[in-house]
């Protein structure tokens, strides 16, 4: 769990920071990818649970555009 705002060069807004999860997702293709997780309650994350790819907005740039990245969220299955 990332519980404090990451330092430079993080593009998210430190003032409105919301903790986020971090994990390695094992893909069927045979690689583990590090990723932000949409779930930020450690108690609801389990090693081995099924995840799916989503696009997450985590900040806004100087021109007001959304800053997006890939993230994974539990499938609930």
């Amino acid at each position, binding site marked *: 769990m990332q519980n404090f705002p*990451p330092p*430079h060069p993080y593009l998210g807004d430190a003032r409105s920071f919301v903790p986020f999860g*971090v994990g390695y997702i094992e893909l069927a293709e045979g*690689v583990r*990818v*590090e990723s932000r997780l949409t779930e930020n309650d450690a108690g609801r994350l389990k090693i081995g649970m099924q995840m799916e790819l989503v696009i997450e907005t*985590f900040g806004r740039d100087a021109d007001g555009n959304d800053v997006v990245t890939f993230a994974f969220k539990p499938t609930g299955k």
Partner: protein
Amino acid sequence: MDIAIIGIGLYPFGRHEGVSAIEMGVGAANTALKDAGLQWTDMHLACAGSLEVLQPDTMNKHLGLTGIPFTTLYNGCATGGNLMLTTANALAAGVGDVGIAIGLDKHPRGAFSVGDTLESIGLGQWYGETGLALNPQFFAMKTQRYMHDHGITEETLHRTAQKAFQNGSVTETAWRRKALDYDEIANAPMVCDPLRKYHFCNPSEGAAAVVMCRADVAKRYTSNPIYLRADVFKTQTYGSFETLSPATPVRDAPSPVVRASAAAYEMAGIGPEDVDVAQVQDTEVGHEIMHMAENGFCKDGEQNAWIAEGATKIGGRLPINTDGGLLANGEPIGASGIRQVYEVCLQLRGDAGTHQVPNNPKVGYTQVYGFPGVSCVTVLST
């Protein structure tokens, strides 16, 4: 290895406002030279390393412009062990009889930054921009996985931190001198699950130095040399799980610590059961616990029982991080590995005073580990 340590010096780790890293390095070097009964002019070669100091060899302006080869290197948290290895290799190769290794650093407060550009560490800028380029995340994930796989309990994490601050409280040179209650540690704010505030070390400032010579001439300088029986430097192989990795293969490979440790035992001709006192990289408690197994002292999962019986305390069956380790001393990266060696030399000489391990320890062990998958292990003996 036929190398001896004949002088040790420490510029105690902590916060030293108004004192530069160079000044601390010079201080540690002068203390080590005095301990050896030698002068800078007696040195045939020198090695120094630092993250924050661009050219640590400029210490020669203070130590003396004697014209000797003065090598600088930086290998992350493995810098200290590699400074000693490079010095030892030069002595063994016949460059000279006597040399000095000096580690120094002075970091700003807070977690280590990856700097302005991730390109300088071989990564894309996006990795930092999206909030993934943080060491504590890695420490937490690796620890989480290890707890899951081997049943390590949160109590074992807390007790490991408690031991570190207890040792710091009886070590005059330590930065954190206050022992902490179990509850204070267990209830401290969560930084990255499962690691809390007192589970982590902090970047700090300080320096450490060792004067080394060929073993066959050691008795010329001192009656109690400490012999460097092994010093091994290893880097990661494909599949080992390391910090700041956007992706890793599914195939697992052993940590460089495992390989450095095995090679060091082989070089020294001993096994983990022969070690009387050890210093291991405890950037946070998770890594001290994992390193107990990676260095061969116990099997994966046995740490719960070891910690519960106090086996790694001063007076336990294998005292670990007897000066409080990184938790109680912080980590000036360039100096940290030599601080471990300084502490082991004190222990083997019987000079550790209030934090002395009982029963005349004869064999000591040090191990550093860090980005980008590097480790150095030394074996030392009387």
